[in-house]
């Protein structure tokens, strides 16, 4: 690659000097022939070179664009793994086809006209000031095309942003400098209340769970992987802890900002499991990834989380294996009000109980276990 660039660079420099020296010669010759000294902008003989240059540029550009487009298209949109993703991909390629045609067509007119109508002393330009029919035509045609694209876009957009189905799997994802954290509602299917004022990294409560709400006792969280079931609607409830972030899952065509103080959401159906993608791509290392796309500070580029799309039964099994936040951080028990202690203790493993706990709590724990 480097060598090709080096050769091209040298070629480019040599050609540039060639063009300069040629142009200079011609210009100098032309100057003598100049009749009207006050007409300093009169076309010099470089005029034809520049006109030809524009045409040659365009021919080369068409070749280069076409080749590079075909060559690199293998890396374009990574394979869509969500239902709405294939829909937006379809409309992306439809729009792309339209604008590619327009790109080649309009630029061709521009450069071909530049060449065809280069200055000639024998000819006078046409005095062609306006043509209302033409104006109407080229106002209407883009307007009609736009209307078509807008309508398709509106339909797809309103489907994607519609309310999630009732049975959607709800998962909360929170952005922080510089990592993602996900929370699941646990076996009761209800998220416990949370409050940013209760957040405490040191205590093991980075999401600010409110332990006066018993729904929070079985909530579990993960800071390395997001697991979701295949083929089932998943509703991401998106939050941010410090600054703006944005959840971006390239393969799922999912992107939504995480805003402090304003929870957002995005729902989608992933229909290719991680294992299926591994097999399809022949890449045993493959994983879906989550990135951040809203500038959030110095390690913005490092907010990576792995997304695992599991078969529904694997997903259910994985969920059962996860330990609630309370189980992992038994010291959080101090935030549980006295009358709810018994319920909370179900989630505390016996050997993890703080030594200083009062005997009734221990007794209750033993009883439940």
């Amino acid at each position, binding site marked *: 690659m480097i060598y090709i660039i080096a050769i091209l660079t040298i070629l480019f420099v040599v050609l540039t000097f060639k063009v300069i020296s040629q142009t200079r010669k011609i210009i100098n010759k032309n100057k003598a022939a100049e009749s009207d000294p006050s007409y300093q902008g009169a076309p010099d003989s470089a005029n034809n070179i520049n006109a030809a240059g524009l045409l040659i540029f365009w021919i080369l550009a068409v070749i280069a664009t076409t080749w590079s487009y075909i060559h690199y298209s293998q890396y374009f949109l990574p394979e869509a793994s969500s239902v709405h993703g294939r829909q937006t991909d379809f409309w992306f390629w439809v729009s792309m086809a339209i604008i590619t045609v327009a790109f080649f067509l309009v*630029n061709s007119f521009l450069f071909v006209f530049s060449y065809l109508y280069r200055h000639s002393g024998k000819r006078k330009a046409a005095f062609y000031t306006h043509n209302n029919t033409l104006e109407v035509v080229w106002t209407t045609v883009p307007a009609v095309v736009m209307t078509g694209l807008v309508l398709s876009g509106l339909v797809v957009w309103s489907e994607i942003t519609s309310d999630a189905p009732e049975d959607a799997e709800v998962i909360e994802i929170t952005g922080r400098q510089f990592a993602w954290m996900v929370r699941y509602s646990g076996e009761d299917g209800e998220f416990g209340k949370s409050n940013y004022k209760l957040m405490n990294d040191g205590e093991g409560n980075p999401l600010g769970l409110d332990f006066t709400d018993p729904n929070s006792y079985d909530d579990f969280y993960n800071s390395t992987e997001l697991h979701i079931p295949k083929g089932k609607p998943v509703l991401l409830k998106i939050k941010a802890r410090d600054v703006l972030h944005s959840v971006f899952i390239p393969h799922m065509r999912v992107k939504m900002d995480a805003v402090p103080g304003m929870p957002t959401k995005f729902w989608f159906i992933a229909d290719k499991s991680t294992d299926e993608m591994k097999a399809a791509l022949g890449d045993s290392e493959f994983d879906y990834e989550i990135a951040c796309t809203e500038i959030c500070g110095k390690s913005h580029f490092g907010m990576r989380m792995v997304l695992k799309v599991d078969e529904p039964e694997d997903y259910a099994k994985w969920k059962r294996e996860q330990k609630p936040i309370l189980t992992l951080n038994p010291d959080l028990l101090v935030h549980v009000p006295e009358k709810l202690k018994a319920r909370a203790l179900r989630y505390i493993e016996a050997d993890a109980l703080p030594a200083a706990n009062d005997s009734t709590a221990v007794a209750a724990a033993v009883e439940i276990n």
Partner: protein
Amino acid sequence: MAAHSLAEEHGHAEHGHEEHHEQGFFSKYVFSLDHKTIAKQYLISGILWAVLGGLMSVIFRLQLAFPDMDMTFLKPFLGHWINESGKLDNNFYLALVTMHGTIMVFFVLTAGLSGTFSNLLIPLQIGARDMASGFMNMISYWLFFIAGVLMFISLFLPHGPAGGGWVIYPPLSALEEANPGSGTGMTLWLVAMAIFIASSLLGSINYVTTTLNLRTKGMSMSKLPLTIWSFLFTAVLGILSFPVLFSAALLLIFDRSFGTSFYLSDIYIQGQALPNQGGSPILFQHLFWFLGHPEVYIVILPAFGITSEIISTNSRKPIFGYKAMILSMLGIMVLAFIVWAHHMFVTGMNPFLGSIFMLLTLIIAVPSAVKGFNYITTLWRGNLIFTPAMLFAIGMVSFFVSGGLTGIILGNAALDIQLHDTYFVVAHFHLVMGSAAFFSMIAGVYHWFPKMYGRMMNSTLGYIHFWISFIGVYMVFIPMHYIGIAGFPRRYYQWSGFKVFDTFADLNIVITIAAAITVFAQFIFIYNFFYSMFKGKKASANPWKSNTLEWTTPVDLGHGNWPGEIPTVYRWPYDYSKPGAPDDFIPQNVPFSATPESNTPEENELIAKEKEIENIKYDHSIPD
């Protein structure tokens, strides 16, 4: 181009003699009230800023193409921003990206473009001796200068300049603990921008007032060159939208320094829950983009005007669809105010609002397309002279078309989900507004240099400059679209942490090399510019055989522009290659009575009214 109502004409005091008062160095070159000098001040400031902004882009492009590169050689310039292992500091990377954006958008393409050409051309093309208020004009430049000094100082702060992206979204920009650039660097950014806005408003008010009130005899609105129309629309956009950015900045200053919560709510950072509640970061985004979107038209409308003028002159052909051009600019101006939230489709804004803004956004593509078609039809059957200015103007049209097309995809909310904040967006706006406006600015300099300095720029160097820049820009931004389609996020220090973004290493190298060559090619222009200023060939009064009024002034034009009376205007500015006329151009100040051979029947009827125009009396109490 039928009969014009002349009753509304207002003019300027005619002194009929040149003012000969001695000026000292300071009042002539520094605190000058002369619109031409102020234009040059804006231009040279703009060039200096462009050099800085361009070099910044080379540094961060190096980082993106060669993430493992040893950058120790930059240590003499960047000091501790290159760490012990020779790596670019990642906070400074963000600062570079932020400052590149801020400098290019505001200091180069707003102040450098509008400031230069509105100041230079409005009085000269409408036939006025100076701006409505020379004093306000001077204040406008010096406020811009102060804003620039503050922004420049921020580059040398120990914690670096602002680093939250040029859009400075809070809370990142509001909390010093979130980002080192959000400390003093951000304070200076905000203060500099507040002063910049004041400067821009003073300038814009002047442009509007001058255009509406100081036109010469016969210069009705329907005879204005498209340049003036575009400057007028730009100024109106600026007056109505910049104050909103000011309010956004002011509220951010309150949040940063006085404990308010306009944009802050529910934040836990570095082990601390902040007391702020009830604010909304989205509010800032709405306020920011209420300027931010019109801003791209503030950048591109003057580019349209300059391009129209240059293409028409060098095609030796009237601009095609003069009225359609004005109407499409008017349409763009009005629509520019109601499309801002297409920058916010995935911010969590109500999806219904997203639908509305998608609809409005795609409507704005229509007048933009009309402009492109009109330019191309102007070339059709022309007699094209490829001066450096003409080449750059054609390049501008090509960039505008190529870059504008991808806007159709980004304006579609459903498709924007995947592409938002990826390199597809970066490639899109760099082509459609960055490079296009930059090219028109360069084109304008080549074209009006003879009016600014009385000398010609070297055209051979101009051709070389064009070809390297033109090919270079496409080599940078076409591949960048590919990277964007693959989903690469912008403002990433490196991508190798992600498997999905671990491709395209070769294309990133191509882009960086092309970008570096393009940036360094601009030094050819800078050399040409300063060399020609002193050593260039002496220009004639009308070197391009152009129709507009500025070419009726003498080569060494002093204060007041015309030594005698200001010329009277009889015709539109695009009478090129008129059938029957001996020359291929008829300047605006040539009466129809002098061109019986080329007049249309309607124009022959206008001859009777010429005396009426000439006898218009102006209010002489208006000072020069």
